[in-house]
C-alpha cells in the first residue's frame, strides 16, 4: 500500500506520496492512515465546482484537486480579478480548504501558475517564463533529460527552436509549451452547459427563512415560464439551486414526462421533492442566491395546450405519474414492456412510466385456451419437496409447499422451456443451463400452480421441483 497524499505535518516529517505505507509507519509510528477514496474525492470536487457556480457559469474540473474557472466578464461584482481570487480563498478557508490560485490569459497558463509558481514576477509573461520545466507535466524521463540539458525553466525552453524540441521530446511537448505561453488556443470545456432558461435572484441580506425562499422560487418559476412561453417551448427538467452564504449549494431537480409551462404543476412537484428529502432544508446563515434553470426544454406549441376529450385524460394521467415519480422515485412508478424471450422470468421489463412508452405488442393468447401463464410469479422460484409421481419423469401427483401437502387433481404439461443457447458464448455447444419442464397443476381445493422440474433426468442427478407462479 502506498501513500497517495499526506498533510503538511506529515510532509514536514519527511513523508511523501508514493512511499510505502509500511516504511512511513516505521518512521512515524503514530501515523493516521485513511483509505484513499477517489470517487468520494471526485464528488467533493464536483460539489466545490457547483459552489463556484456563483462566480461564473464556466467551471471545469481539473482532477484530482483543481478547478479552472473562466472569469472573463465575471469580475465586476467582486471588484477585479485579484479581489475575486481573494474572496474565493477566504470563502474556502472558512470551510477548512487550502487554496492556491492564479489568473492567466489561457486555462493552461492559469493552471501551471497556480500549481508551480514559486517566485514572484513583474507580470504574467515573466511569471510563466520563470516556471520550472516540471510545469509542462511531461513524463519524468523527459523532465530529467531537460534538466540534464541545462533547461530549467519554461523561458529557457521557449528560447530554443521548437523544431529541435519536437524532434527530441515529441510534438506533445511543443503543444504544451505553446499553450502555456498563450501562442495556441486551448479551449476550456466547462462542466456546466449554460441552460436555455435561467432565472435567479441575488440577495444583499441572506434569506434565512425557508418559506420565503420557496416564495422566491415561485416567482422565479413564473419568470421562467414566461420566457418559455415566448420561445414556444415547455420545460421537461427543472433544477433549483439554493446557494448558502457559507458556500454550500442545495440542489433540487424535478422532471416531467411531457413539456410543461404550468407554474402550479412545477411548484407542486418541487414541494413533493422537498417533502421527500431526508433532512429538511437548512438555510444555515441564509441563502444569498437562488437560481432556477430549465435544463431541458422541448417545443410546446399553443395547439398542444388545446385539449378535448381523451387528450385531457392522458395529460391528467401524465401529471399524476410525474407527481408520483417525484415523490417515490422514477423506479417505483413503472409500466410493463414486453421482451422477446421465452424464459418466463425475463419476458417482461418494468420501465419507468415517466419515460415515453414505445408502442409494443404483447403476444396474443390463443382463443379457447385457458391462461397458460400465471398472474403472480415468484422470484426466485420457491422449492417444493416430497414430490410424488408415478414415473420418474412424469408429472407430480402430490407435493408439499409451505408446509402444506397438496393433492393434485388436474394437470397439464409438460411445457418444455430450454435455456437460450444462442445467448451463450459457445453457442450450440454451450454446457450449463438446465431445461425446465413446466406443469399447470390444480389441487383438490382449486388452487392452480405453475410448477417446474429443474433439469431433465439425463442432465442432473436429482432434479429439483419448484413453484414458479400462481394462476388465478
Amino acid at each position: 500500500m502506498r501513500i497517495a497524499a499526506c498533510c503538511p505535518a506529515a510532509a514536514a516529517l519527511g513523508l511523501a506520496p508514493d512511499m510505502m505505507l509500511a516504511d512511513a509507519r516505521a518512521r512515524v509510528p503514530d501515523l493516521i492512515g485513511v483509505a484513499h477514496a477517489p470517487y468520494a474525492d471526485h464528488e467533493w470536487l464536483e460539489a466545490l465546482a457547483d459552489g463556484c457556480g456563483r462566480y461564473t457559469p464556466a467551471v471545469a474540473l481539473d482532477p484530482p484537486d483543481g478547478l479552472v474557472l473562466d472569469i472573463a466578464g465575471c469580475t465586476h461584482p467582486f471588484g477585479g480579478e485579484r479581489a475575486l481570487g481573494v474572496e474565493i480563498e477566504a470563502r474556502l478557508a472558512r470551510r477548512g480548504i487550502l487554496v492556491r490560485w492564479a489568473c492567466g490569459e489561457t486555462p493552461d497558463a492559469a493552471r501551471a501558475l497556480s500549481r508551480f509558481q514559486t517566485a514572484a514576477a513583474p507580470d504574467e509573461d515573466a511569471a510563466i517564463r520563470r516556471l520550472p520545466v516540471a510545469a509542462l507535466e511531461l513524463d519524468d524521463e523527459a523532465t530529467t533529460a531537460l534538466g540534464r540539458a541545462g533547461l530549467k525553466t519554461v523561458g529557457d525552453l521557449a528560447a530554443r527552436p521548437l523544431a529541435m524540441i519536437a524532434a527530441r521530446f515529441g510534438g506533445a511537448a511543443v503543444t504544451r509549451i505553446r499553450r502555456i505561453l498563450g501562442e495556441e488556443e486551448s479551449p476550456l470545456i466547462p462542466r456546466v452547459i449554460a441552460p436555455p432558461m435561467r432565472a435567479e435572484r441575488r440577495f444583499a441580506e441572506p434569506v434565512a427563512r425557508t418559506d420565503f425562499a420557496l416564495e422566491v422560487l415561485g416567482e422565479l418559476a413564473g419568470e421562467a415560464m414566461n420566457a418559455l412561453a415566448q420561445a414556444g417551448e415547455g420545460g421537461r427538467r427543472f433544477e433549483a439551486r439554493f446557494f448558502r452564504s457559507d458556500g454550500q449549494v442545495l440542489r433540487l431537480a424535478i422532471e416531467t414526462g411531457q413539456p410543461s409551462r404550468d407554474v402550479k404543476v412545477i411548484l407542486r412537484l418541487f414541494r413533493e421533492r422537498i417533502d421527500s428529502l431526508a433532512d429538511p432544508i437548512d438555510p444555515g446563515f441564509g441563502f444569498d442566491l437562488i437560481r432556477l434553470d430549465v435544463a431541458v426544454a422541448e417545443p410546446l406549441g399553443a395547439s398542444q395546450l388545446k385539449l378535448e376529450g381523451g387528450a385531457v385524460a392522458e395529460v391528467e394521467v401524465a401529471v399524476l405519474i410525474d407527481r408520483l415519480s417525484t415523490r417515490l422515485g422514477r423506479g417505483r412508478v413503472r409500466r410493463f414492456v414486453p421482451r422477446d424471450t421465452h424464459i418466463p422470468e425475463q419476458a417482461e421489463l418494468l420501465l419507468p412510466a415517466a419515460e415515453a412508452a414505445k408502442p409494443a405488442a404483447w403476444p396474443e393468447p390463443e382463443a379457447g385456451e385457458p391462461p397458460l401463464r400465471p398472474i403472480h410469479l415468484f422470484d426466485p422460484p420457491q422449492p417444493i419437496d416430497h414430490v410424488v409421481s408415478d414415473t420418474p419423469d412424469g408429472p407430480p401427483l402430490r407435493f408439499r409447499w409451505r408446509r402444506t401437502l397438496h393433492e393434485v387433481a388436474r394437470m397439464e404439461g409438460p411445457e418444455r422451456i430450454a435455456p437460450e443457447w444462442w445467448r451463450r458464448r459457445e453457442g450450440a455447444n454451450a454446457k450449463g443451463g438446465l431445461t425446465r419442464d413446466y406443469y399447470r397443476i390444480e389441487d383438490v381445493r382449486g388452487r392452480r400452480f405453475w410448477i417446474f422440474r429443474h433439469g431433465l433426468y439425463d442432465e442432473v442427478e436429482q432434479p429439483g421441483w419448484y413453484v414458479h407462479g400462481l394462476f388465478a
Partner: protein
Amino acid sequence: MNILAPDSRLWATAGRLAELGQGAGARIPGFGAAALDGAVVGRLPVAALHEIHAAADDAASGAAFALLLAVHALDDGRPILWVRERKSTRALGHIHAPGLAELGVAPARLIHVEADDAVATLRVAADAARCAGLGAVVIEPWGDPPALDLTATRRLMLATQASGVMGVLLRIEARASPSAAQSRWQVRAAPSLALEAEAPGLPAFDVCLLRQRGGIAGIEARLEWNRDEAQFRAQGAGAPLSGAVFPLAADRTAAHPSTA
C-alpha cells in the same frame, strides 16, 4: 289500479329515486349468475370503492378477481393503476405481465406503483383516486395497517365518487374492519371445469358478497372468467345470462335502505 304493478308510474318513480339515492353513473354489469345478479345488477356504481378480501393461500385468485372486476366494469380501455406495498410483492410474488395478457387484460394498460409502507400506499391511492383520467385504481396494502380505518376508506370513497374512478381495495389475509366501501367481497379459488385429459380449465372463483351498502348481501356464487368474451359467467353456464333480471325483492329493500 294496483300501485305495486311493475308498469305503474309509482314503480318507475321509485326505481329512479332508488337510483338517485345510490348515486348516478355507470353500474357494474351482471356476472351471469342468477342469485348474484339479482342482488347486484343496477346497484353497484362503478365510481365507488369496492373491497375484496382473500386469504393468503388464495392471493392470486383475489388479485385476479380484483383486476378482472375493474376490467369487467370499465367498458373502455382506460388505464388502471395498481399500487402495492413492498411487503406484498415480497410475500406474494411479482405481477407477471404475460399472465395478465392470458387473462385478457392488456399489460400496457397497467401502471404499477410500489410504495414503501401502508401510509405511502394510501397516499398514492388518494392521489390516484382523484385523477379522472384513470379508469380504476387497485390498492393492495399488506395485512391490517392501522392507517386503513373508516376515515381513510371514506376519503377514498368520496374521491372515487367525485372523479368517476373505480376503486378496488384488495386485502390479502386481513381482518374485516369497519369500512365505508360500497361493497365487500370474499374470494376463494374454486376447482375449475376440466378440459380434455383432465387439464385445468378456465379460472374459477368462489365469490361471496359479504356486504353491500343499501342492498342485500350474503350471496355466494361460483364464477369463471372467459377471456375471449371478456365476461364473467356462472361456472358451467354455456352462454352468459343477460343482466336484465328484474329484482323484485331487492327493490323493496332499496325503498327501506338497511344500515350496512
